């Protein structure tokens, strides 16, 4: 099945619509190991390095994708749409204006935006995206989300290295869905048999910029920190909620989007905090790791308030800034090891 790529810094993209069109949704995650020189010709070096990596991937691989769609996310995402329009060759480029709010007017607008996207896909690819096809896609998504919730819940009980969980969340947004379901079922059997949570590791909640490469997971692991909860798009935000399976499927997608844990690009930020506190109530952790990618404005803007509130609630927090590189320097290691020492 051909891939349809999407650029979404949250979890706003309606994968189910692309599935109903007959494509495999493929989230553009960039490649930290590749230099961003191609993108740097079109985007200033001070712009988010992840976005430049995503553009580099787009420039190199767009001919492998049926089309590309953006979702309204951070300002960097939105403002790069035109750059992609001029420089990335693709037969279909689209921008979905996902609203930042969840009120009644916003939801009505969101439904119209999704229907408009459907309309454009139908015309471009000469298909009919019926309500039944959408409902089938929603069922597949929900199956995946259910399996991932089960897998994720094992992190606090079994010996599941950070990199193992990270591998799964990456695959959840890039693999063909039916193939992925088989892998999830197999992983679930395997993870249930794993030894108990290791006594030498410290359970933490992680929040902040999405982590798109496993090396960062490894450095947390080597520092003795095991992520047992998170609120990231490459993480729990993707599978925390289930899409309603009754009623109009487009309305169902809108309703689902209004209920998922919020990224920092949505308003108000108390909703994001609510999910973090829910995680902290449900799962015992020793501390919170708030890591941000250098220049990641949405997270950096949220950080002072979120950290202040979490600390006031009595939790230990480390804030740590990282570069977009697989090379983990001693500064970062020292900070993480110190955090572990004081937990």
């Amino acid at each position, binding site marked *: 099945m051909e891939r349809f790529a999407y650029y979404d810094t949250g979890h706003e993209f309606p994968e189910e619509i692309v599935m109903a069109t007959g494509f495999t949704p493929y989230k553009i995650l960039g490649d930290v190991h590749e230099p961003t020189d191609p993108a740097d010709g079109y985007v200033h070096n001070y712009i988010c390095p992840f976005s430049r990596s995503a553009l580099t991937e787009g420039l190199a691989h767009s001919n492998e994708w049926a089309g590309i769609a953006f979702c309204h996310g951070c300002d960097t995402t939105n403002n790069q749409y035109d750059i992609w329009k001029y420089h990335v060759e693709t037969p279909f480029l689209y921008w979905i204006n996902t609203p930042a709010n969840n009120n009644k007017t916003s939801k009505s607008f969101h439904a119209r935006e999704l229907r408009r996207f459907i309309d454009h896909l139908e015309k471009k690819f000469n298909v009919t995206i019926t309500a039944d096809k959408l409902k089938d896609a929603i069922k597949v998504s929900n199956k995946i989300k259910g399996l991932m919730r089960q897998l994720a819940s094992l992190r606090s009980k079994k010996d599941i290295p950070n990199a193992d969980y990270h591998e799964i969340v990456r695959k959840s947004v890039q693999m063909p869905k039916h193939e992925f379901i088989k892998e999830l079922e197999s992983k679930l059997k395997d993870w249930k048999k794993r030894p108990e949570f290791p006594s030498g590791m410290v359970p933490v909640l992680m929040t902040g910029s999405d982590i798109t490469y496993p090396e960062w997971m490894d450095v947390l692991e080597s520092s003795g920190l095991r992520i047992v909860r998170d609120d990231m798009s490459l993480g729990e935000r993707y599978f925390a909620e289930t899409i309603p399976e009754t009623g109009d499927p487009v309305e169902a997608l809108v309703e689902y989007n209004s209920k998922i844990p919020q990224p920092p690009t949505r308003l108000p930020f108390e909703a994001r905090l609510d999910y973090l506190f829910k995680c902290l109530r449900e799962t015992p952790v020793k501390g919170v790791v708030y890591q941000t990618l250098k220049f990641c404005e949405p997270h950096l803007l949220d950080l002072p308030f979120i950290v202040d509130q979490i600390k006031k609630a009595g939790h230990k927090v480390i804030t740590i800034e*990282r570069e977009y590189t697989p090379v983990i320097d*001693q500064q970062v290691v020292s900070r993480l090891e110190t955090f572990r020492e004081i937990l």
Partner: protein
Amino acid sequence: MLTVGLDIGSITTKVAVMESGRILYTDISFTGYNPEKAWRDILERTLSGLGLKESSVDRIVSTGYGRNNVSIAHKKITEILCHAEGARHFLPKVRCVIDIGGQDSKFIRMDDKGSVVDFAMNDKCSAGTGRFLEVMARALEVPLDEFGELSNKAKNTVRISSMCTVFAESEVISLISKGESRENIIAGIHDSIASRMVSMMGRTGVVKPVVMTGGVAKNIGIRKALEKKLGIKLDVPETAQVNGAIGAAILAQNLNGSNR
């Protein structure tokens, strides 16, 4: 019990030797390109000077960026805990530690029992650290150890607005071209470092008494700039620059058995 603390920093390597809670000796040398050679040399020189052999040492704790290079250490402990312990040795009631080193600045908050409860470190940037001062000293053609004295003579504090060391250097060069005095510029540099430090401290909260450690603590100009912004008098040990090594040597006393 004879213990040794080794603090292998990005710029300097420090050693402290303690016997039954008493500091016997401290020393400092440049780390250079080879951290392993740096700690081996300083340890050999220290023990030789004291008439001791390595086998006489009961416990060794290493800290700093190069701590994992110390193969003979019984334990490797991060510099945050070591600096907190070193500050407590100097002032048992200490609640906060400001440490400004070569490439890092740290703020540590402790509870009333001396346990570290929170800390903050500079973001991935050398502005506000010893490195920043070195760059400025070169631009102003002033030895770094004269900075404190010169800033005391400033008539005004020039504002250095750049957040980045490299751009701040350009800004200083522009100020020199405009005829601004070195004293005023240095006062502005100190003010800039103090501002960054105070912002960082605001994230964790400040509780008195506060001890300042690290090589930059020798700079009276920065101490005064910090005291003015915080409205708090800072306590500074004579051994500020080797505080991490002292803390490591103290923590070595608490180790049980041989963990090598």
